[in-house]
């Protein structure tokens, strides 16, 4: 039994499944990293991703074109994150409250619209993005198959993670945005347009979360189901904290969660005599333990979830 688990083919398949499960989380996590860097906590990521998933399905279903679906998914995500931005930046409201309300709202809206859309029709499915093998890289044993024989959205993610890292580390604007998240008053007195940067960050938050939701529909399942994000938005929030607010840290944390989930699913199919329900606890328990491991190295932006009001002390 242990031999079965430690075999190369098992581990390769496991890693591949881990990446597949992690990609939507990584999009959500990357969007959330960007938002939190600018001091805005978006607990509504669940709603953003759900909106992205639903509207990408709508776009792809009615147009028959996956890229139009993706565009709709992005717009769906941006619509939700803009509403969050309006409430939390323009009106300086409690960010946790706003995010939770948006999650509930989007759960209702997407379920409602989907019911109307699908009434009387049979099972609906759209095509999905096919995988593209990258020559040479996909030949690398073990990781090649998992990372370099994937769909276009996964490759886009790799590029985005690197770009976001460079943006925050190497550009002036990136440093200014980081300053906004740390101390908006100081940033403002240095001439940084605080609210403008927060708005732009939230647009990216919505776009990336929207793609994350679209991944589930346009890459993995080809269908929309009610409440299909089922907590991935919240997991994405956890990956940001685990990854200590860096893109690569988040990448690793999401991969860890994906691996725990993949392991849980694989163990069930190999017939391990443990209840599948106990195994399903594994990814969440691992996330909790990993958060304990991150204690003491506080890298949270100083002004996270504190509204910035011009002129107020």
């Amino acid at each position: 039994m242990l031999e079965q688990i430690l075999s190369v083919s098992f581990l390769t398949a496991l890693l591949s499944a881990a990446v597949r499960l992690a990609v939507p989380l990584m999009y959500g996590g990357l969007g959330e990293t960007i938002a939190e860097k600018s001091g805005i906590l978006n607990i509504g990521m669940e709603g953003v991703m759900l909106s992205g998933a639903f509207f990408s399905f709508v776009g792809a279903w009615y147009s028959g074109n996956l890229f139009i679906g993706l565009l709709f998914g992005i717009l769906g995500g941006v619509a939700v994150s803009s509403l969050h931005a309006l409430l939390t930046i323009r009106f300086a409201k409690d960010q946790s409250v706003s995010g939770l309300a948006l999650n509930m709202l989007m759960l209702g809206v997407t379920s409602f619209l989907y019911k109307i859309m699908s009434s009387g029709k049979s099972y609906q499915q759209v095509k999905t993005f096919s995988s593209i093998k990258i020559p040479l890289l996909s030949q690398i044993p073990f990781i090649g198959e998992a990372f370099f024989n994937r769909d276009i959205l996964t490759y886009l993610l790799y590029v985005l993670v690197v770009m976001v890292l460079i943006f925050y580390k190497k550009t002036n604007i990136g440093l200014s945005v980081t300053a906004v998240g740390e101390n908006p008053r100081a940033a403002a007195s240095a001439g940084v347009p605080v609210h403008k940067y927060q708005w732009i960050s939230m647009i990216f938050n919505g776009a990336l979360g929207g793609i994350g939701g679209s991944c589930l529909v346009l890459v993995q399942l080809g269908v929309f189901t009610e409440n299909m994000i089922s907590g991935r938005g919240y997991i994405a929030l956890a990956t940001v904290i685990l990854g200590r607010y860096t893109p690569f840290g988040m990448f690793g944390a999401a991969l860890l969660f994906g691996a725990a989930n993949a392991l849980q699913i694989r163990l069930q199919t190999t017939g391990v005599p443990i209840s599948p329900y106990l195994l399903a606890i594994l990814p969440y328990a691992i996330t909790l333990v990993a958060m304990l491991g991150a204690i003491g190295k506080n890298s949270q932006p100083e002004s996270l979830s504190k509204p910035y009001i011009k002129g107020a002390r």
Partner: protein
Amino acid sequence: MILQAKQKQTIIDAFLIFSITAIIGTVLILACGANPLEAYGLLFRGIFGSSSSFAEIFVKACPLILTGLGCAVAFRTGFFNIGAEGQFYIGAIASTVISLNVTGLPGWIRIFLSLAAGFVCGGLWALIAAVLKAKFNISEIIVTIMLNYIAINFLGYSVRSFLMDPSGNVPQSAKIEPGSQLMILIRSTRFHAGIIIAVICVLLVWFLMEKTSIGYELKAVGLNRHAAACNGISVIKNIILSAFLSGGLAALAGGIEVLAIQKKLLEGISSNCGYTAVLIALVAANSPIGVLAAAVLYAAMQVGANSMQRQMGIPSSIVNIIIGVVVVLILGKEIFGFLGTKRKLTVMEEEK
């Protein structure tokens, strides 16, 4: 003078929020191709049509009152407990275990013991997040959400293993003995004694928060943690206390649901009330009496919407949309700014 203007503004806001919500509801019903008048008539009849459907409102409201109350207590102390869902399930499991295994005692003692066990276990479950928050400053939002998934899966495991009904192979527990069920108070309805417990809890929590020094300390920590600490109020102690109460109340809801409604433990019994509770608490501005009112209103909408769904095919998810819209409007009521210039002044004052 300022107070009067503020009150006037509040009434105008409430009226606007109600109107906008009603308009959105009408548009949604139209979008389903149904006649709004007919639908509202059905909603009304669904609620007031018979004594059993009217009683059903309170049956549906009961878990929402308790979980909402739990959230309100936690939010007042600045502990953002999103874990009512998980605490509800832990309470349901613990109550079932005690109710099925403690025998040979009078019924009411067994009811008391099983609900008390649920309360304590739910409180301890919430305490995990509170300790992590108070000691290590780990976001309680994330931890309580993780704990929800753990609790839900643990329930799935328990009804398939140690709690599984030995006489069947359905994933549910054995039936609670009639003697230790919470009794029905109004015949031919489902109006049960648990609803009275929920209302008593509302009054107790109101008394605790408004009339005692414990409540004062809890609120002080929620308002300004540093100021509270400077005045000798222990932040850690109060966060832990409020989390325990909060988890316990949510767990009580779970225990009552098992002993009064389902009469056994099975999956999905919370019907997501733990997440709805968060919004109920927010709509009620974390006031215990407000939670009672908001929960009953929400339950009435749910009962009415269910009858709309049955008879006219209007998806009952309309209720989720409505409550989401209400909270968004409460947060964004400055959007109504075009109605007067007074608004800006009050905002500035609040900020100071």
